[in-house]
């Protein structure tokens, strides 16, 4: 037997977050609900584009950023999609996985299966958080890409008029769209963190998905009440508009900076609470 085939010392081979993360992705890959979310992220921009294409009146969606330019350039399409996706679509699609990723193990009884191996509980939790965030990022990337590519094919990759009224060329528009998408990922990740919390404490997938969506809509209702305007800067729903600062010239970073700490203020305590609950809980199901 050659030295290469000799087993390594036990300590060198202990699995951790990486092993859990890889398998969480494989589990997502094998589950139908993952594809329901991703399919919706493909279908909604397509339906929007189709509706615009068959509408001969020349009108577009009202009161949304970039809605006046949807027939001028394909670059406006993903940006309008981002704007209307914030109301419930993207929070729902995010919650579909984040709200399920812990609770489905409870309902399947598989939590005991993975918690009696050689990984620590926090490894399992961290792997699930990373997998839920990965799904969220992929979901958003698909949503924006479909709008951008198909919108561009229909209306061309022409220069885009920014929110400051300046015109930017295709390269700059592409770059700013990518940057804006990253900014959009902040509040969406905070939604995912709330989904993970509800998934962990309710042990019930449906309750966690619906609960996450309710939290998201609840904040929009507060935002709509003018007597409570003082709360607006601290609501997640407001952070879903922060990306618009990037599509200005010069870029307005203030809303992005505020979004980063407000979203962190929702996400980090949610994850800390969820982790504590996950570490201390009695695993009795199955």
């Amino acid at each position: 037997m050659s030295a290469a085939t000799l087993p390594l010392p036990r300590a060198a081979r202990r699995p951790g977050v990486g092993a859990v993360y890889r398998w969480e992705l494989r589990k997502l890959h094998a589950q139908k609900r993952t594809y329901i979310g991703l399919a919706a992220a493909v279908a909604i921009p397509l339906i929007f584009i189709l509706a615009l294409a068959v509408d001969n009146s020349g009108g577009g969606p009202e009161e949304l950023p970039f809605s006046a330019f949807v027939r001028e350039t394909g670059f406006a399409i993903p940006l309008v999609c981002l704007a209307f996706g914030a109301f419930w679509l993207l929070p729902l699609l995010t919650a579909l996985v984040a709200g399920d990723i812990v609770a489905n193990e409870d309902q399947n009884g598989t939590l005991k299966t993975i918690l009696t191996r050689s990984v620590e509980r926090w490894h399992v939790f961290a792997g699930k958080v990373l997998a839920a965030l990965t799904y969220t990022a992929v979901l958003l990337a698909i949503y924006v890409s479909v709008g951008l590519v198909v919108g561009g094919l229909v209306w061309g990759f022409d220069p885009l008029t920014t929110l400051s009224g300046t015109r930017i060329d295709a390269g700059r528009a592409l770059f700013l769209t990518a940057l804006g998408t990253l900014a959009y990922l902040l509040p969406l990740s905070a939604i995912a963190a709330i989904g993970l919390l509800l998934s962990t404490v309710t042990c019930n997938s449906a309750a966690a998905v619906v609960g996450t969506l309710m939290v998201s809509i609840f904040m929009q209702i507060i935002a709509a009440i003018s007597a409570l305007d003082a709360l607006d800067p601290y609501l997640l729903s407001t952070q879903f508009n922060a990306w618009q600062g990037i599509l200005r010239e010069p870029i307005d970073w203030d809303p992005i900076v505020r979004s980063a700490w407000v979203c962190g203020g929702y996400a980090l305590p949610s994850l800390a609470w969820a982790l504590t609950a996950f570490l201390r809980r009695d695993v009795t199901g199955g």
Partner: protein
Amino acid sequence: MMGTPIEARGLVKRYGEITAVDHVDLTVQAGDVYGYLGPNGAGKTTSLRMLLGLIRPDDGSARLFGRDPLLEGARALDGVAGFVEAPRFYPYLSGRSNLELVADLDGDGARGRIDEALDTVDLADRAKDKVGGYSHGMRQRLGIAGALLRAPRLLLLDEPTTGLDPAGMRDMRLLIRRLADQGMTVLLSSHLMAEVEELCDRVAIVGNGRVLYEGALGELIAGTAGRYELRTTDDAEAAEIAARVVGDVEQTSDGLAFSADESTAAEITLALGAAGIGITALVPRTATLEELFFRMTEPSNGRPQLERAVV
């Protein structure tokens, strides 16, 4: 140096008013095939969950090879494998994928043991099918395969034959026997006396969360010895002769019965022979585990049930 495979001291678990596990002490030595016997609801599964670190005891401690899962987490399970209640897997993954998943969470070369484990539990030709389509027996076997990937020195099995058909039960018991013969220490929770009698050398009998008996199975059964059944060519005459030797002889529906030690029983046979009475049967009657079990777990008066009914 390695520590005792299982050492539980004063384990307590309460759920509201109900004490599911009430100060349970449990010691399983290396090489034991240890039966954890009790009726459903006696707290067997709850005890196993505490041993595996799945739930926190309200009091007491559990150590596996000297390590407390509450303090050391997954490291306390090194060399330990098993499952509580039915083993659960991901229904949308194949049997092999499920084993690959748990093997990757084991590390330590577990992936290299998958083929051997599948062969051991006779699932190699169904390994590519999704677990969602598996029968209960196949899942049970996959659970054992999953445990074997850890190359365990201690195996905890919770009613592994429950829900299996007779052939499945026989195969499962043969498998446990084989693993024990390879030197694995086994803790087998069960409510089936025959299974425990067949497989185990030590037992703890539990009822209502308490350990009612703990010790070698042989000693438990031997302790009830000393009862004989006798049938002869002339039972009436034989009863008188035997009564002269042992005092008290009981007439039963199909013969006589008396209590005596071995030498006294032999004395009676000689006396019967001298009197010209033929012996057709002299059978030492030990209590079965089942009789002992019911004697211990079912209170002779109805009070506990009555109290529960009032609550």
